[in-house]
């Protein structure tokens, strides 16, 4: 099996926030913590509004793991980035390191005490016994150990958010793009990072 991954199809996401709600409900996420959220750009601009659902991307070379001073993160065999809340000290370094804003810190009490870090687990729980009450209380549901996929992706009404084995969901998305008759130039790498307008620069790229 390849690595577990999320893909969000910006052509389909309708900013319903159903994934956010499903995540909160499934994992009993406390108020103020958003393991997943929907980001919209060009909001209200007709024809240019795009939304994507964002959570922990379970990076192969995760910056949160690199900066954690107590080394509470670990990679699972399926490529998921999980953490041990018994070791986390809630310092917040991972929050600064993460480019997706995935780490969340529950604040409670009069002085906004910062708790231990919480983030998307790909519905894979944590280092407690799989499916146990202790795991649910600390990390939420372990749907992978139940033979299921993350709740956010499975309940997405437009199937914009895909989750599962990277090869499988990449095939699903590829098939969609082919069926649409238009490729990644509509929304993807080319749009996100811009095309090179300098032909010399492109020639240089080809040479190297």
């Amino acid at each position, binding site marked *: *099996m390849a690595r577990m991954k999320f893909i969000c199809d910006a052509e389909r996401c309708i900013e319903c926030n159903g994934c956010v709600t499903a995540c909160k409900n499934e994992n009993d996420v406390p108020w103020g913590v958003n393991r997943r959220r929907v980001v919209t750009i060009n909001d209200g601009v007709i024809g240019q509004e795009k939304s994507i659902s964002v959570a922990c991307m379970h990076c192969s070379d995760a910056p949160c793991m690199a900066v954690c001073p107590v080394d509470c993160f670990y990679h*699972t065999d399926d490529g998921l980035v999980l953490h041990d809340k018994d070791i986390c000290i809630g310092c917040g370094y991972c929050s600064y390191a993460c480019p997706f804003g995935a780490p969340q810190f529950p604040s409670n009490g009069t002085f906004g005490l910062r708790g231990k870090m919480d983030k998307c687990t790909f519905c894979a729980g944590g280092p407690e016994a799989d499916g146990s009450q202790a795991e649910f209380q600390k990390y939420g549901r*372990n749907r*992978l150990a139940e*033979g299921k996929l993350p709740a956010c992706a499975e309940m997405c009404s437009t199937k914009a958010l895909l989750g599962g084995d990277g090869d499988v969901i990449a095939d*699903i998305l590829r098939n969609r793009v082919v069926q649409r008759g238009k490729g990644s130039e509509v929304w993807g790498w080319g749009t996100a990072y811009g095309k090179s307008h300098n032909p010399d620069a492109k020639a240089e790229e080809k040479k190297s």
Partner: protein
Amino acid sequence: MIRLIGMSLLAVGLVACSEPDQALTASSAKADGKPWQGAQNAFVAPGWQPGDKTRWETQLRNRAQTQNEYLKAR
């Protein structure tokens, strides 16, 4: 005798120059269970028998295809 005392003092003095290894060479996180061994609750997907890695992978691949409505439309 003086040489022996001198060497002893030198050895004791040099011990202070050493430094124990403080590097975190391995994650201190607890070992996580394997998901294919199944969850200890009543929410295990019907039709799937936990305990075998290949069966678990097949289960997740099949389940992922429920996100592919082009298959449903056929």
